[in-house]
């Protein structure tokens, strides 16, 4: 850790030296003593971690020095140490941004010691938070967050990049499991707002009567149970981004209120009168077609146009070709790393099987499939048999997967053979085809019985 640099600004040489001596007993502190405000201000380039400032100095008042320090760097914590026992002076200085106010008496040493300890702890926490935020930022770099090289996904990267560089409202659409929230996060963490909050709210998960207070907050007593003031998600996301997932589920009344907040850039808490300015980037997502919802009268047209901003449509996984294999390998490797397992390879047959599937649950489903495959695999190879699809929408998927008529016929026959324990006569009867057709297909290798 860097040394904790403390400036002691105290015109009484004796007292200043004493404070320096005392604080220097902590080997992590690097203390420097100045007897005038000017000397302190001139040394600010040394980036002190904290400053102990005497209120009465020969060349300027403590308030003047405080203002100069704050102008240079408002982040430096300043502790006023003063012989003035005047409460209003203390209050004024604290209002001007002083971190603490300590009166010179027999407890000064202990109070200053504790205050510096607190400042140091706060600084290290702030540093830790800032490092974590940077880590999160790295985690959400576009090509880290969304794997793939297909044209459709590269096109999405371009749009995400454009969105990140501006403040434009972004609407992300895509089937369930395509990664809409990840895209929203990636846009936020790659934008100038990255160090401010990213707040997510799933509109469909909150009852209609609660959503206004959730989004805009409420005052104490606004409704039964509002026992204290609570700030809403829009205020929480100040200078950051708010992600409204499943926006199509918002009721019409609430849509009007949201439109007003987005248009006016100000809100009023439920039960309150105070107008609060907002500075929030809005990112919305839905798996529904919002234009269709507008046509049906379920979504306000004005809000639709306000939210549309930059539309990013995430392609379903089945349209992403070889991205399926890139993602499959990524998920297996991640899972094995987290579970301290050896990373297996994916056999050619397993890859073929993966490429043929339609993934109604998209990337989320693929992730689950690959994690299960990693667990089921008994060797260094994931085989086709280790991969099992458990989709709840198999019929729709069957039709979604483009195939030739011959291909569909083979699939149907295979399905029936499995269902009726390879009883060819039964299958022929059920499908109303000749048993010789099935025998011929088996003979030519078009289908192979398990």
């Amino acid at each position: 850790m860097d040394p904790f640099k403390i400036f002691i600004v105290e015109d009484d040489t004796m007292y200043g030296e004493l404070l320096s001596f005392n604080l220097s007993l902590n080997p992590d502190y690097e203390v420097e003593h100045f007897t005038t405000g000017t000397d302190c201000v001139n040394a600010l380039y040394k980036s002190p971690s904290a400053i102990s400032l005497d209120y009465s100095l020969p060349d300027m008042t403590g308030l003047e020095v405080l203002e100069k320090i704050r102008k240079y760097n408002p982040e430096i914590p300043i502790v006023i140490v003063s012989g003035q026992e005047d409460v209003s002076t203390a209050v004024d200085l604290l209002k001007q941004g002083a971190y603490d106010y300590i009166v010179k008496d027999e407890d000064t040493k202990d109070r200053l010691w504790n205050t510096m300890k607190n400042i140091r702890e706060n600084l290290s926490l702030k540093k830790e938070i800032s490092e974590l935020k940077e880590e999160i930022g790295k985690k959400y770099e576009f090509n880290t967050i969304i794997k793939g090289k297909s044209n459709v996904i590269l096109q999405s990267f371009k749009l995400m990049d454009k969105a990140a560089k501006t403040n434009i409202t972004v609407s992300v659409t895509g089937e369930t499991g395509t990664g809409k929230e990840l895209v929203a996060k990636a846009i936020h963490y790659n934008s100038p707002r990255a160090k401010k909050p990213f707040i997510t709210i799933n509109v469909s998960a909150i009852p209609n009567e609660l959503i206004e207070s959730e989004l805009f907050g409420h005052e104490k007593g606004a409704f039964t149970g509002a026992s204290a003031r609570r700030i809403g998600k829009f205020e929480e996301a100040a200078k950051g981004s708010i992600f409204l997932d499943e926006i199509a589920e918002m009721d019409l009344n609430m849509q009007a209120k949201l439109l007003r907040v987005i248009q006016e850039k100000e809100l009023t808490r439920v039960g309150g009168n105070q107008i609060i300015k907002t500075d929030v980037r809005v990112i919305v997502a839905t798996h529904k077609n919002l234009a269709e919802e507008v046509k049906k009268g379920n979504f306000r047209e004005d809000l639709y146009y306000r939210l549309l901003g930059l539309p990013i449509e995430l392609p379903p996984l089945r349209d992403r070709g070889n991205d399926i294999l890139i993602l499959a390998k990524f998920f297996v490797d991640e899972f094995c790393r987290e579970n301290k397992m050896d990373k297996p390879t994916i056999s050619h047959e397993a890859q073929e099987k993966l490429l043929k599937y339609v993934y109604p649950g998209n990337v989320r489903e693929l992730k689950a499939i690959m994690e299960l495959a990693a667990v089921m695999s008994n060797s260094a190879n994931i085989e086709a048999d280790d991969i099992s699809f458990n989709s709840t929408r198999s019929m729709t998927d069957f039709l979604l997967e483009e195939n030739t008529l011959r291909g569909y016929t083979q699939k149907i026959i295979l399905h029936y053979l499995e269902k009726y324990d390879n009883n060819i006569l039964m299958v022929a009867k059920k499908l109303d085809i000749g048993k010789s057709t099935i025998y011929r297909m088996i003979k030519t290798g078009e289908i192979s019985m398990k």
Partner: protein
Amino acid sequence: MEENIKLYNLDNLISMIGSEPESVKEFVHLFLDTSSQTMIQLNEAFEAQNYTQMGALAHKLKSSIDLMGIESLKKEIRTVEIIGKDQNNLQKLDDLIPKLNRILEEVYKQMQAEIE
């Protein structure tokens, strides 16, 4: 009478820097140097009737007097500071300033005797 009583108390100083004799000695020397310098300036300001400057110097001396436990001057140095700031009761200074000089000189003597 003042000659017979110890006019200062280093407990407060020791609580801040520890009882290591060399450190205590170092700070007593520092007090002797800096406070005598401040006292010279304070006397000059008083003579020149620059009461604002005199008050500021009294403020500066106040914390050192507290630190060295010079009880007989704690109230007096504050009074000088207030008079300098408010410029009221200036006549009181005729007693206060000589008292400050007298007691501090005695303190210096006692301190020098102790550290030597």
